[in-house]
């Protein structure tokens, strides 16, 4: 540590919202070239702190110093001018403009007639992208590039704006392993440029890889400031939740039975190619692969949301034809989608209505929904799944990510499914709630449910699955059995580095 003042010092920050104290006396420091992890459960105050730093909120109490100079950040545009650049979870860029136009948004280079000089702009954009070692065609419309590349564009924009501090909020949540690796390389480059980085993530293994220091928050206060080499996963989790957590979750692994769902030669033009898959009673089959490899599409095809041209789906040995999710429900197939807020739930409806929507028929009395029965039913699920809500009538939008996920699970368990497809079961959910959801999935498998679990998180895939099907470019390129489980094996198949003719699918558990 140098004797000079830190790049950023947020001193004694308190933020009070009507009825809630979101932050209390938070001290936060960042040095040049430091990558500081900011961790904490959802609601711990991380986003509030970042919003204060980026000028969205004003602190109720406390001061902010940039390079030792007291600073007031009134507005996000102020923050930008001072060199503070947030790279958001859902990147806010213009999909119809090109990559270059996005980098130079509202400060495009002009020629002598005052018109935008597109050539110069693209050359300049390439310059900044090259500096970061990013290879994207700057003329490409942003809507055509992947989420990972959009993030890179946002980073290039920040660097070109001479950012001093870059904030990453869950940057890898929608990235594949390989894309995340690229991001880490870029972050290392940013460090060399003496940029201070705040890195918010729920993925602890990432933090150990990329961060140099760590700040842990809990209930609006800082509970720890450590050098990364001085802490272990257990330490971090303890600081986050204030209680010891047993390592990662361990599955009971019960009996695996007969095939429930069989997929034979399923093909969707340009997306899925000749998919063969068998899912057994009591089994959790992990589905791994890069984003865009067809994982989610396979789930949608089974659920009747994506029409397929070839192949068949058998349920308990009988061929089924599903053209709409309503038919899947009748067949006992449930899909818990990746995008909980937009597809899984109706955020503005009550917890009760969200849970009961799939089974309203159960409560009919002379053709009308009997709300008493409905409420009783929903309350039972709220209790069983320990959904934390002040009442069944609370709107789903006000609950935390973990509790929202439980509502979606409840909604589908209510249909009594034989097959449960769950896409990214714990995305954006904090550590404590995560293992509780894992435990729930384990219990369901033990009760004989056949579970197909899609996940981008390798630790989740490895701890939860009985077998793992790895997808690559619309095909299932390998089924990995438990005895062969390792991150390397799955990554090498998922990235297409290793391709082997698929052996016939047999169970060995």
């Amino acid at each position, binding site marked *: 540590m140098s004797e000079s003042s830190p790049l950023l010092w947020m001193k004694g920050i308190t933020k009070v919202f009507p009825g809630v104290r979101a932050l209390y006396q938070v001290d936060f420091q960042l040095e040049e070239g430091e990558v500081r992890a900011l961790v904490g459960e959802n609601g711990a105050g991380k986003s509030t702190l970042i919003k204060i730093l980026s000028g969205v909120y004003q602190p109720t109490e406390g001061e902010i110093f940039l390079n030792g100079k007291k600073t007031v950040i009134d507005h996000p545009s102020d923050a930008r001018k001072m060199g503070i650049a947030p790279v958001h979870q859902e990147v806010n860029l213009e999909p119809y403009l090109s990559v270059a136009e996005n980098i130079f948004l509202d400060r495009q280079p002009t020629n002598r007639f005052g018109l935008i000089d597109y050539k110069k702009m693209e050359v300049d954009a390439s310059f900044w992208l090259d500096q970061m070692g990013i290879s994207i065609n700057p003329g490409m419309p942003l809507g055509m590039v992947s989420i990972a590349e959009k993030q890179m564009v946002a980073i290039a924009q920040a660097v070109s704006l001479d950012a001093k501090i870059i904030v990453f909020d869950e940057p890898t949540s929608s990235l594949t392993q390989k894309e995340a690796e690229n991001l880490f390389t870029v972050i290392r480059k940013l460090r060399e440029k003496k940029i201070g980085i705040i890195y918010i993530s729920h993925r602890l293994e990432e933090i150990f890889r990329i961060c140099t220091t760590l700040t842990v928050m809990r209930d609006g206060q800082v509970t720890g400031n450590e050098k990364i080499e001085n802490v272990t996963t257990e330490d971090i989790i303890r600081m986050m939740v204030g209680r010891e957590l047993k390592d990662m979750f361990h599955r009971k692994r019960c009996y695996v039975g007969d095939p429930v769902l069989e997929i034979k030669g399923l093909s969707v033009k340009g997306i899925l190619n000749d998919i063969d898959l068998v899912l057994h009673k009591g089994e959790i089959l992990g589905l791994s692969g890069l984003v865009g490899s067809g994982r989610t599409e396979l789930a949608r095809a089974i*659920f009747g*949301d994506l029409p397929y041209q070839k192949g068949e789906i058998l349920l308990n040995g009988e061929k089924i034809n599903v053209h*709409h*999710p*309503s038919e*899947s*429900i009748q067949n006992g197939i449930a*899909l818990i*989608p990746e995008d909980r807020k*937009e*597809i*899984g*739930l*109706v*955020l*503005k*409806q009550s917890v009760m*209505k969200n849970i009961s*929507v*799939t089974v*309203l*028929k159960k409560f*009919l009395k002379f*053709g*009308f*929904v009997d709300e008493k029965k409905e409420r009783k039913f929903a309350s039972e699920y709220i209790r069983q799944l320990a959904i934390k809500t002040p009442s069944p009538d609370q709107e789903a939008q006000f609950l935390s990510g973990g509790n929202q996920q439980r509502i979606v699970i409840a*909604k589908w368990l209510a249909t009594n499914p034989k097959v449960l497809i769950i896409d990214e079961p714990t995305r954006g959910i904090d550590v404590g709630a995560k293992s509780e959801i894992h435990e729930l999935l384990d219990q369901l498998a033990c009760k004989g449910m056949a579970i197909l679990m899609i996940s981008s998180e390798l630790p989740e895939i490895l701890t939860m699955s009985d077998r793992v099907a790895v997808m690559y470019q619309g095909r299932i390129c390998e089924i990995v059995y438990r005895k062969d489980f390792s991150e390397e094996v799955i990554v090498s198949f998922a990235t297409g580095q290793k391709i082997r003719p698929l052996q016939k699918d047999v169970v060995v558990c």
Partner: protein
Amino acid sequence: MLQTVGKFIINYPSIIILVFLISLGAFISPVFFTSRNFVNILWSVSVLGIIAVGQTVLLITGNFDMSVAYIVGLSGITTVMLQINGANLITSVAGGLAAGVIIGFLNGLIIIRTNANAFLVTLGTSALVYSINLILTQSKTWYAQIDAFLILGRGKFYGTIHYSVIIFLTMAIFVQIILRRTIFGRSLYIIGHNPKAAKYSGIQVNRLKFGVYLFCGFCAGLAGLVMTARTGSTVANAGVGLEFDSLIVSVLGGTSLFGGKGGTIRTIIGILILGVISNLLILLNIQYEAQQIAKGVVFLTVVCADGILEKKRRSS
């Protein structure tokens, strides 16, 4: 306590406006607070009310129908033309209703198949329906031929209130019960909030949306019959302006233009507010131009308030 009142006002602001307007009316005009005047107000809004029931249901699903005004014309014209060509009461009425349902069918079909913007598609069909009306009527006024038909518009139930009012109120209450208490109704709200989530919950989104367009066409057709029976005659642009009015009263009652929120009982309140305002303007002998200004102001206020409240609900 204050918070509960505040919440109540945010959720049901319209009742307060209605109470205020009625007290104001009682204060400024001696004729206003009489049962005869109230019967008149109800009668004057019943046509609009029947349309608004359909429009409200569409709004709940996040859809619009701007063609209702000319459907009113079309159904009246169809009925009168059938009567002129010798059809009996039942056939002519069925014909008028069918005309409305057919246009609803067309709207629904186009919107679901092409995923085009509902507002613009129905404006388009609206222009087409108007031209059909012009061709059928040759731009002249035509008169209903069957006297019994006129009861629908002018008749009173045992000399108390008009049948058309009873039809409107019954429909509004009946539809409200369906909206709140049946799976069909509950599904409409989900579609309005989030059609994608609705589909992933197993709701046949397109089928229900289609049904609601049919219903809205039916309501507009029925309103056309009532209007024709009231005046005994019909012209090509008989219902002009009712598309906007039906939006005003729905939103005035508290149904949101953003979908997922509202109900037909609310629409009754909205209708009464508009009815009382125009009744007061007439009682006070205010010119037609000024009445239009008042309507414009109410429309803008209501639409802006809906936007602001939506923003509040989101941020709360």
